[in-house]
Structures are given as structure tokens and as C-alpha cells.
């Protein structure tokens, strides 16, 4: 090791070293602040920084007792230039136990959120200012407990808007029940449902119904199964065959119940069979392989794809196209919609899938729900237009009123 040092700093380098040393001593201000601080810290500074002051621990409001927020005034030695603080460490004692480090805060920081607490426990905190010359501990906070709140008032506007929409839904349901006809615009894809079933009947071929590859905890699957109820009712009337391979066991049970109920409603319970719906596998592409096989072997005249889809959408829709089936698809998955649009005859885009059951059934409850949702959309549209105009005018001509309107609207729709 010594040999290496001797080779690096040879006699030839000595004059340069003398010049650099002299320049450093004569012109200390030429060096950057950061280098200077590091130099002082490493070699010259043995004095620890001053501790943080005014440390306060407070329970986070309107949460589930999951966080405590700390604030403090940074150490007076926490400065950008020539500062003695390189960061802060946060220590915590739980229920009177020993103190353990729960996190770090950077230089210049004055707050920290401890999101590892459990509600009901008592916590005490202190903050340590860390510098090259040592560290300084703050005073300890008063004991604090993370409380659970029943109501999250940060979401009061969410509640209010939800209440308006829910109220609209109830109002429209009652209106529909009283016999008033509620207008729903024509949805092309749904107009074609009965026609597609009729075609399969005439051709003597089955109908294939795919409700996506997700489970019953997905609203799109539920929407697909709801439409299945209407489709199955028409199939029962026409005495057509339905084929529904599924990739989730719960969907199989729900689909069987739905079809059975539809056959019962059509007065044809004897025509129902559990074999109409069969489980294949949970594996996405294993399921697709099976569906493709069914398509090319049984050649269904009509294929419905209504639910949540992923990469399997185009594979199935392309196979359906290759066998000449009428295809009606519907999903709210933005990445899969393009594939259905190009490969299917009719596609229900996003919200249309959820509107479908109301449109097809004409039931007061579903129609009222759809109308109520339209009220929600109208509110959202109005707020977006007013907000955009207000913020644009406010910022262009410095009109406080407009800026305040935009800020208020933003705060109303802020969810956190």
C-alpha cells in the first residue's frame, strides 16, 4: 500500500501540490459552498447542530387511526450554506416501550408522517438533528393516540354530490313507477341483440356468451350477467341454444342462476340445463384456447362479449370474425375497446355497457338509475365547463373572482 502511495505522489507532483495548497489557503471563497461545508464537516466541525424546536405530534384528522403527523421548527443550524445539519431522524416509543427509529427527514424538512401506527396505542416521539459534528435530540412530545374517526369530513362534497345523484335516482325511479315514460336514446349495439338472437335461431346454430375473464367482484362482469338475463329470456322464447364457457367458478354459479330464472320467466323451465354454462379454467390464455376451440368446432351464429376483458379480447373477436358470427361486444376496459371496435359488428363503449340492462329491460328501477346517473354527468359537465372558463379568464385578466370560483370548484372535487 505504501508503495502505491509513493508511486502516486512522486517528486514530480510536489510543486503542483504546493500551488494547490497555497491557493486553497489564500482564496478560500473560491471553493463552492457545498465543498466547503463538507470540508468543515469532515475535518473541522466537532460541534453538534442545535436541536429542532416546537416539536408537535398530532393525530391525523378524519382517518382510520392510521397516522400521526409531526411538525417542528428546523434546527437553527439547518442552513443551505455552512449548515451543520445533514438530516433528521425520527424516534418513537410505543406504549411506554423503548424508542425505535421510525423514519428519516431530509435537511430543511419540518414535517413527517408516521403511517405505521396502530389505533388505540400511545406514542411518544422525538426528533434528532444529525450533523457531521454529532447529533442533538429534541424534547419529547406529549403522548398521543391515533384515534379512529367515524366520518371523513374531507369527503363531505363527495357525500353531497353522491346524495344529489342518489336522490335523482330515487326521484326518477318513482317517476317511472308512476307510469311516466322515461326517454332513453337509441343505442345501436343493443338494438341488434334481438336481431342477432333471431339470426342464430334461423341458422339453427348456438349463441356464444362470454362475460369476460374477471370474477363477480367486477362491476363489468355483473353488467354482463345482467344483460345475460335478457338474452337468455329471448333465447328461451326462441328455443335457441346458448353456450357459455366461463373462467371463474362464481361466475358459473351466477350465470346458471340467471339463465335458469330467465327460462322460468319465459315459462320454459324444462328447457334449462346446467350444461349451458361450464367452467373451463381460471388461466387467461387456457380459457381463450378453449373458447377458440368451441368457436371453430360449434360455429356459433352470434357471439356476445360483455364484461371485463384483457389481452384475450382480440384473439376471441378475431376467431369469431373468421367463422362469420355476428359479434356484439361491450366493455369498459379502455385498452381493449379498440380491438372490439375493429373486429365486432357492434360495440358498447364503457358506460353503454352499464346502460344496456336498463335499455333492454325497460324496468322502472333500472331506467331511474340510468336517468339519475345522467344528472351526475350533467353536474360534472357543468362544473368542468364553468371551472375551465373561470380559471382561463381569471388567469388571463387577473380577475380574483374568477380565480376564486375555480379554486372553490377544485376544492369541492378534491377527494383527499
Amino acid at each position, binding site marked *: 500500500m505504501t508503495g502505491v502511495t509513493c508511486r502516486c505522489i512522486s517528486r514530480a507532483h510536489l510543486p503542483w501540490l504546493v500551488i494547490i495548497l497555497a491557493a486553497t489557503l489564500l482564496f478560500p471563497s473560491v471553493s463552492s459552498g457545498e465543498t466547503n461545508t463538507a470540508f468543515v464537516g469532515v475535518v473541522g466541525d466537532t460541534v453538534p447542530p442545535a436541536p429542532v424546536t416546537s416539536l408537535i405530534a398530532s393525530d391525523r384528522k378524519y382517518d382510520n387511526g392510521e397516522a400521526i403527523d409531526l411538525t417542528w421548527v428546523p434546527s437553527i443550524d439547518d442552513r443551505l450554506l455552512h449548515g451543520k445539519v445533514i438530516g433528521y431522524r425520527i424516534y418513537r416509543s410505543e406504549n411506554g416501550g423503548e424508542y425505535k427509529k421510525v423514519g428519516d427527514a431530509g435537511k430543511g424538512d419540518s414535517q413527517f408522517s408516521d403511517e405505521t401506527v396502530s389505533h388505540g396505542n400511545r406514542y411518544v416521539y422525538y426528533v434528532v438533528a444529525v450533523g457531521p459534528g454529532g447529533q442533538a435530540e429534541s424534547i419529547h412530545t406529549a403522548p398521543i393516540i391515533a384515534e379512529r374517526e367515524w366520518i371523513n369530513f374531507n369527503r363531505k362534497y363527495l357525500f353531497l354530490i353522491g346524495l344529489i345523484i342518489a336522490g335523482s335516482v330515487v326521484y326518477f325511479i318513482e317517476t317511472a313507477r308512476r307510469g311516466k315514460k322515461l326517454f332513453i336514446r337509441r343505442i345501436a349495439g343493443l338494438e341488434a341483440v334481438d336481431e342477432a338472437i333471431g339470426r342464430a335461431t334461423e341458422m339453427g346454430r348456438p349463441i356464444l356468451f362470454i362475460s369476460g375473464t374477471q370474477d363477480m367482484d367486477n362491476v363489468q362482469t355483473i353488467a354482463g350477467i345482467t344483460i345475460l338475463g335478457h338474452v337468455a329470456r329471448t333465447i328461451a322464447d326462441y328455443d335457441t341454444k346458448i353456450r357459455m364457457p366461463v373462467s371463474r367458478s362464481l361466475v358459473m354459479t351466477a350465470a346458471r342462476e340467471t339463465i335458469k330464472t330467465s327460462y322460468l320467466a319465459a315459462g320454459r323451465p324444462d328447457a334449462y340445463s346446467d350444461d349451458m354454462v361450464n367452467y373451463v379454467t381460471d388461466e387467461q390464455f387456457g380459457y381463450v*384456447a378453449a373458447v377458440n*376451440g368451441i368457436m371453430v368446432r360449434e360455429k356459433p351464429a352470434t357471439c356476445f362479449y360483455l364484461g371485463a376483458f384483457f389481452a384475450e379480447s382480440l384473439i376471441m373477436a378475431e376467431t369469431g370474425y373468421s367463422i362469420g358470427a355476428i359479434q356484439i361486444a361491450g366493455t369498459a376496459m379502455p385498452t381493449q375497446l379498440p380491438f372490439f371496435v375493429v373486429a365486432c359488428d357492434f360495440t358498447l363503449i364503457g358506460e353503454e355497457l352499464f346502460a344496456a340492462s336498463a335499455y333492454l329491460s325497460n324496468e322502472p328501477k333500472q331506467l331511474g338509475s340510468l336517468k339519475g346517473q345522467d344528472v351526475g354527468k350533467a353536474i360534472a359537465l357543468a362544473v368542468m365547463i364553468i371551472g375551465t372558463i373561470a*380559471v382561463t379568464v381569471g388567469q388571463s385578466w387577473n380577475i380574483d373572482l374568477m380565480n376564486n370560483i375555480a379554486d372553490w370548484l377544485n376544492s369541492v372535487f378534491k377527494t383527499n
Partner: protein
Amino acid sequence: MDGVIMHHVALWTAAFLTLGIISFLYRDNAWYKFCEAVFIGISAGYWFVSYFWDNLYGKLWLGIFPTDPTQPPDYILLIGGALGVMMLLRLIPKIGWLSRWPLAFIVGATAGLNLIIYFASNVMVQVEDTIRPLFGANYAASAYDIVGNIVVAVGTFTALIYFFFSKEHKGAFGGAAKVGIFVLMVTFGASFGYTVMSRISLLLGRIDFLMGDWLGVIK
């Protein structure tokens, strides 16, 4: 030596199954049917075992009878277990109707939980993010940004109008809805191209396997 043999067996099996599935592009055939049956059988068996050990044993059994003596039993899991047993009652026709209860529970809970989640993420956040200045003195933006902001605002407003079901798409309202569906189709076109590229990369992965790992043509 055994490892080398097993490696080659696995390699040839994977290549055989890959080519079998790809053969569907030509037409349905016995090779594809075989691969399809293998795929479905193995995956269904795998998921059965996975659900059994992860859920029934890992969550339900160990939750009620924890192996760690310091951990208290979580008896609330018995409700889930009971709902699971009720699902199986379908196998007994006389009381099979009880299997509708867990289904109703799942659908109801899903609708209730998702109502708030979707409303917050798909409505509130969307509205908040749309309220942005198109242009302005205090907002330093290039002409490109301004055009982009206007396109986003108009696209959002008109696409939302398309999804109104209470009013016929006629007149100015219908015109706005037409712009909305046009915006949606342009978005779908861009998304289509992007996703196709990712599918191409999947195809390349398979070709790389066949030509590289299996045949050794590509190094």
C-alpha cells in the same frame, strides 16, 4: 446429466406445445386440440391447488387456528367459511337455493364498495384534473400547449355528451356527441397501435424462444 436431459425434455415440450397452439392459425387440428386440453387441464388443476393452499388453508384455516400462539384466532373468517360452505350446497338440490345467499352477498358488497371507489376516481378526480387554464397571462405555455389544452377540454366535454342517454343526439347536442365519438375513435386508434406493438413484442419473444433456445439459429 439428469439436469441436462430434463432441460432438453422441457425445451422440446415447450416448443411442441408452442407450435401446436400456433398451428391454430392454419386451422383447427388434432395437435391444437391436444395442446388445448393439456393447457386447460394443467391450469385448472394448478388453480385448484393454488386456491386450496392460499385461501382455504393459508387464510381460512390458519386464520382460525393460527400456528403462532401469540396471534389470536380471527373468528370473523368463519363468516367467509360459512358462505363458502353455502356455495357447495348447490350439490344438494333440496337446499341448493341457499347458494344464492353468498352470491347476493358478493354482488351487493361489490356494488357498494365500488360505488365510492369509482365515483371518487372516475368522476371527482377527472373533473378536478379537467379544470385547467387553456391559456393566460400567468400561465406560461407555448402555442403547442394551448392547442393541446383546448383539444383535451373539448374532447372531454364532447365525449361526456356522447354518454348522455336522456337526450336524443340531434341538433347542436348531436353535433357535440358526434365530435365526442370522433375523439373516442382517435383515442382508440392510438391505443390500438400502441397495444399491437406490445403484442408484436410477445410474438417476438416466442420466435426468439423457437429460433434461439430451441433451434439455436439465433444466438
